């Protein structure tokens, strides 16, 4: 039996350091005993892409598990709270067209499905406000917790907006300083393979040969190991998700105490949408669009109109988005994490969360030896393919429910031939039954649970037929949770501080560990 004990991660971006930290934290005991090693090889000359300034609440568990203090995270990564997404102009394109996809579950979600009861009431309240407090918290720019709550605890579920350019170095210093990860700054010049195709070692220009038992490919779009060396194909999904280009810009605030939104704003445009992410020191804004439907010049002028005069003299970066993912993610003794595994438009901040979930799966299921690695890999591929498929479906949901017909982009997006079959079928089912707990999304770690589908469906005006006889079954319980929501919304509004106020306090005073 050939033991798997030396892990080599190639690439020093967010994905690389997340993978290194997660694996090293999980195997600390063996690392300290000298029986396991995690090495990260990073090219000194390749800049990180640094996409992804939005995260999912999983990031809190991830950071806690690798032993990072939340206070340190806020202080070093220009972190801010994120409580969901606000989607404007996606349904009708009108000025008053918006909905929230919050991060909390509807009240009592594990006991009762409030969606049919909300549909039956049809009282003009948005679905989000009827079932949870978070839309109101976002409307008022409130934080999800107070300064007296312990690190990683919250009154409402939350994740972060962060500066990806600061996050990777932050994880690096934690991984090398606290978790025993070896950091090698060197360019890989040759990949050495065994007869069976496994990678045995990497020749580097500056640090000689680095051998390993398992290689994690975090080389971004280059996909050095999984793509170039092992020739795993790329499965594009541009027939479903049309956006293929982003123009990104960083915009300073006009004053240091300007209010800071606690949600990602995603405002639909003629042939795409604009993200707007609030960090304490600046906003990150980007126009994601389909180059088949719009020229760069037009996209630039739409971005300029959104940003206003502040765009003058700012550097606008063009980022290509090749939507899709690898056919498989783990082949031989190579597993891909991050952009090397695939990339989708940042509509629901799926990049970092997928990196986290993949890193966790690798860390948890670390094969003891080479002999069982193929079995672990097969499971990893199945789970990861499922996740990519569901994310693609979920992103498409935001587009295909549109009623906009003001441009070819939106008309094409609603064309059934561009909607994956599984999603088409689910949309048919959901006309008669709303998605819920234990339904179609029954995996232990769904990236987007049934609640997320509810928020988008009913936020975009989708109607599910309601059977009054079925409603009667849990009518009282539903009414009770709806009332509870009103009470808890009211309480949270009065108790929670403004988003910027709390972030400033955390930087000044810190949060307590308990």
């Amino acid at each position: 039996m050939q033991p798997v004990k030396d892990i080599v991660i190639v690439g020093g971006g967010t994905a690389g350091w997340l993978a290194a930290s997660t694996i090293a934290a999980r195997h600390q005991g063996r690392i300290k005993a000298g029986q396991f090693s995690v090495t990260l090889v990073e090219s000194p000359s390749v800049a990180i892409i640094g996409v992804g300034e939005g995260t999912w609440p999983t990031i809190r568990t991830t950071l806690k598990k690798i032993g990072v203090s939340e206070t340190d995270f806020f202080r070093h990564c220009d972190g801010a709270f994120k409580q969901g997404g606000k989607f404007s102009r996606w349904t009708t394109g009108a000025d008053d067209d918006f909905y929230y996809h919050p991060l909390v579950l509807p009240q009592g979600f594990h006991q009762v499905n409030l969606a049919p009861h909300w549909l039956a009431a049809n009282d003009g309240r948005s679905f989000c406000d009827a079932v949870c407090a978070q839309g109101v918290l976002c409307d008022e720019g409130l934080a999800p917790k107070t300064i007296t709550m312990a690190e990683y605890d919250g009154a409402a579920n939350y994740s972060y907006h962060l500066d990806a350019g600061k996050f990777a170095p932050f994880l690096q210093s934690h991984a090398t300083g606290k978790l025993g990860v070896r950091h090698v700054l060197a360019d890989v010049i040759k990949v050495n393979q065994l007869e069976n195709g496994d990678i045995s070692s990497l020749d580097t220009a500056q640090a000689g040969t680095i051998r390993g038992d398992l290689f994690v490919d975090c080389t971004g779009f280059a996909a050095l190991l999984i793509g170039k060396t092992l020739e795993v194909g790329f499965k594009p999904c541009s027939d479903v998700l049309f956006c293929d280009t982003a123009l990104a810009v960083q915009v300073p605030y006009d004053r240091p105490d300007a209010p800071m939104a606690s949600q990602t704003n995603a405002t639909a445009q003629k042939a795409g949408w604009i993200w707007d992410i609030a960090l304490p020191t600046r906003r990150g804004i980007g126009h994601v669009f389909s180059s088949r439907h719009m020229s760069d010049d037009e996209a630039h002028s739409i971005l300029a109109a959104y940003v206003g005069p502040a765009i003058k003299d700012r550097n606008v970066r063009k980022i290509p988005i090749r939507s899709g993912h690898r056919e498989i993610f783990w082949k031989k003794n190579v597993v891909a994490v991050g952009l090397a595994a695939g990339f989708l438009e940042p509509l629901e901040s799926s990049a970092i969360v997928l990196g986290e979930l993949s890193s966790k799966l690798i860390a948890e299921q670390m094969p003891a030896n080479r002999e069982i690695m193929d079995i672990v890999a097969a499971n990893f591929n199945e789970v990861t393919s499922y996740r990519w498929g569901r994310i693609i479906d979920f992103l498409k949901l935001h587009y295909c429910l549109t009623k906009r017909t003001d441009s070819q982009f939106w008309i094409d997006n609603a064309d059934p031939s561009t909607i994956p079959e599984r999603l088409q079928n689910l949309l048919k089912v959901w006309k008669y039954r709303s998605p819920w707990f234990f339904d179609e999304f029954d995996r232990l770690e769904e990236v987007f649970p049934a609640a997320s589908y509810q928020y988008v469906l009913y936020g975009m005006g989708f109607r599910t037929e309601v059977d009054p006889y079925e409603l009667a079954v849990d009518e009282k319980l539903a009414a009770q949770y709806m009332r509870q929501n009103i009470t808890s919304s009211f309480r949270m509004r009065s108790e929670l501080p403004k988003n910027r106020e709390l972030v400033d306090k955390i930087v000044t005073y810190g949060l307590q560990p308990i």
Partner: protein
Amino acid sequence: MTNIVPLNNQSHRDLRVMALVSDERNFVAVVAGEFPHLAPHYPIFFSKDSETGAFYCGAMLGFDEGENLFVAEGRNVYRPLNLQRGPFFVAGSDIAIDLDSPKVGSGELLFDESGAPSVYLKSIMALFRDLVPGMEQTRIFIEVLLGLKLIEPIDINLSFDDGTRRSLAGLYTINQEALRDLADADVLMLFRRGYLHLIYLMISSLAQVKFLAQRKNTALRAGLGLPR
């Protein structure tokens, strides 16, 4: 409102302050040096400052906002320094007074006829010599305990004779399981610094919650016309 001004023997020559009247507060910040005096009467907890989130130590005097169940005790029971100091504050090396405090008006004089501090004011000055460095010592004590993960939240649920219930939130105490699991070197360090003594005083003071509840029940029964 408050009107805090530095104290001087000219303008405050005839000022009088009620020395023995305690604030109507149910929780008051305390310093580690007071623990031996506090523990026989009050439960001592950690709590968090609502502005900064920082931990501090506090003695519990009652269960509801503004409920001090020891008000009638006068000198019979040790009064935490932060109650003894009445309307006085320190501003750098000077003592300041809140002229708007209800405790200012009648009571003890602050200066004698020659303008020298009265016995009462001297006792306040002495109090600050304990309180000011005491706050810093207590902060370090808490920092060490946090580092050793010795602090944990505690939920306290009570029901009183009038049928009402209280759930007290935002309180923390010593994590006794973590205390038992400490490495020998850490135990020795805590002992040498005098912290082990403070830790056990905090643990034993938890028994006072029951007596505090009895005080409240006695008052309630009196109010309800029930036999004591």
